[in-house]
């Protein structure tokens, strides 16, 4: 029969049983929503994450106390790890000289910068860094200059500020040479950073970089937190060697016996992206799993609706059979009807899933990526659901005895 007629029929039976149908469609929508929502989230995060990796640079790797992406109960593994102390880090930098460029830094969040009557939002990230930081971390100076080794070793209170501070504290004035206050200490502005925009919904321009030694002195309560070491190999070819070398140096600095595991994390571009991949798989599997469970429930609902529909339309089926509809016609009609129902629910789910993904995208101010593969997957799933859960009711309809069906009131 023409598919169109079956689809129209399906829409009519939705109208006939609005509430029940809407509830069932809702559960399909929720299932598809979970799948598409997770898909969109993963795609969006991936896009954002990859651009971050590119910014980080190819030859760079980090040594930290804990991993930057933590899944499940990996915190247990890190709980007893000792901090990487400033002494250890300095020694590491010294031993790695000639092999690669090493930068040490530490940072804390939530600072308010002040200047006279001006003050910023309490969102400034205070970074304590050494002289290599700007090169290794790709922090580009817009105006003024970076601080050098002397300023670090002599603990000179100078600061290089991000664009948010320039805007919020200086109101068009030239900041160079002026003073700002960070946690009751005055710093002289010697440079400004090039605007970086935002990432994962956070401004990358609310930053102030001061010498690590000053940071350690003035933020001693935070000083317990571990130093992060960023190492830049001189070329891509030397990266693997530099990683091996640093692990060796770090192990000896932390007095590890040969049979003991590393008590620090080495993160290269690759290791971070594989960690991220496992995190996004986790999210995707979670979305898929919860989606499929709700689809299963929806399937039972669809079957119920279809069985009721077959029962209510027994007479109609009898009439159709009496004037010569073969089994296959009736089967086809009801299966198309079930598929139409599922697709309708699915489309609603896709719509809201993508919408939620867009919402997430704008929340972390990145472009939302619609997961085309998951959209196609959802459409296929809905079709299969219609087939799977519509078959039995359709078979029941097709097997009705024409005379008995005609007699049904």
């Amino acid at each position, binding site marked *: *029969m023409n598919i169109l007629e079956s689809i129209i029929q399906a829409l009519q039976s939705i109208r006939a049983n609005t509430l029940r149908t809407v509830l069932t469609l809702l559960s399909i929508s929720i299932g598809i929503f979970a799948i598409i929502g997770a898909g969109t989230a993963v795609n969006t995060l991936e896009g954002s994450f990859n651009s971050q990796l590119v910014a980080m640079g190819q030859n760079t790797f980090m040594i930290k106390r804990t991993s930057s992406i933590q899944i499940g109960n990996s915190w247990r593994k890190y709980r007893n790890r000792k901090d990487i102390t400033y002494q250890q880090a300095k020694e590491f930098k010294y031993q790695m000289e000639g092999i690669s460029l090493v930068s040490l830094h530490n940072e804390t969040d939530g600072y308010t910068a002040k200047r006279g009557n001006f003050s910023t939002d309490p969102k400034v990230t205070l970074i304590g860094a050494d002289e290599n930081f700007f090169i290794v971390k790709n922090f580009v100076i817009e105006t003024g200059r970076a601080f050098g080794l002397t300023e670090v070793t002599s603990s000179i209170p100078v600061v290089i500020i991000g664009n948010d501070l320039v805007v919020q504290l200086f109101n068009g004035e030239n900041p160079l040479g002026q003073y700002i206050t960070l946690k009751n200490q005055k710093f002289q502005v010697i440079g400004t950073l090039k605007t970086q925009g935002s990432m994962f919904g956070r401004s990358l321009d609310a930053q102030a970089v001061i010498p690590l030694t000053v940071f350690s002195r003035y933020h001693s309560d935070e000083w317990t937190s571990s130093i992060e070491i960023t190492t830049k190999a001189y070329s891509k070819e030397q990266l693997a060697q530099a990683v091996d070398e640093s692990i060796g140096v770090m192990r000896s600095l932390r007095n590890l016996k040969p049979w003991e595991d590393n008590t620090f994390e080495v993160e290269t571009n690759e290791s971070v992206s594989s960690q991220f991949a496992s995190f996004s798989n986790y999210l995707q599997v979670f979305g898929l799993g919860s989606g499929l469970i709700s689809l299963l429930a929806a399937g039972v609902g669809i079957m119920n609706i279809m069985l009721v529909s077959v029962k209510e339309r027994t007479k109609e089926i009898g*009439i*159709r059979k009496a*004037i*010569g509809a*073969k089994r296959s016609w009736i089967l086809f009609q009801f299966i198309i009807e079930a598929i139409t129902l599922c697709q309708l629910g699915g489309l609603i789910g896709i719509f809201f899933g993508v919408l939620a993904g867009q919402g997430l995208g704008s929340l972390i101010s990145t472009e939302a990526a619609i997961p085309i593969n998951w959209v196609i997957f959802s459409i296929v799933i809905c079709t299969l659901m219609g087939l799977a859960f519509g078959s039995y009711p359709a078979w029941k309809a097709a097997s009705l005895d*024409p005379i008995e069906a005609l007699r049904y009131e």
Partner: protein
Amino acid sequence: MSTPLIHIEHIARTYEMGGETVHALRDVSLDIHPNEYVALMGPSGSGKSTLMNILGCLDTPSSGVYTFKGLDVNEMTDDDLAEIRNKEIGFVFQTFNLLPRATALKNIELPLIYSGVSSEERKERAIKALEDVGLGDRMLHRPNELSGGQRQRVAAARALVTKPSIILADEPTGNLDTKTGIEIMKLFQDLWSKGNTVILVTHEEDIARHARRIIRIRDGKVESDTINPNPVTKFELP
């Protein structure tokens, strides 16, 4: 005489009802030839509808032989029977049995959909069939927007649109008043005079008088099977 269109031999139909066997048909043998006009009569519960349903391939006998155009109906699958119902038999029911949500035209197109006729030809033939029963101006009406007589004419048009070998009508006037009943009977008379084969079930002697052959059934058996010596061809309101 020509080869029979319908040949049944010692047909029986029983129903099992809570351990009891109901004999709806006991032992019926009949031949129906092309262009016959047969009235099937008998008291209520005598088995007329049961017989018509078997003849119309809607039901199958519990025992006995049924050949339609020389083909053994007992051997056929459900789909074969559906095809016979679709192409060879035009069934008119007492209760019309139209699809309530479909227009008159759609109702008439339905059997053509099942026989795979293209949509243009389908529409053309359905319009023609509707005009033939005098309802050319009611094409887009739904059944509940038509009178009983008009509904029955739509049902007749649906039965005729596939150009079947035989028209079976089970009390087609049973739900109609005398005047509209006569309209329907005129239609059958017309069809018969154009060469169609017609079997109809009726309670009313007045209606049976139009037929050329009258078969009376009692308790699931043929009581009498006679040629009507002087069939009435004129229709008058009593």
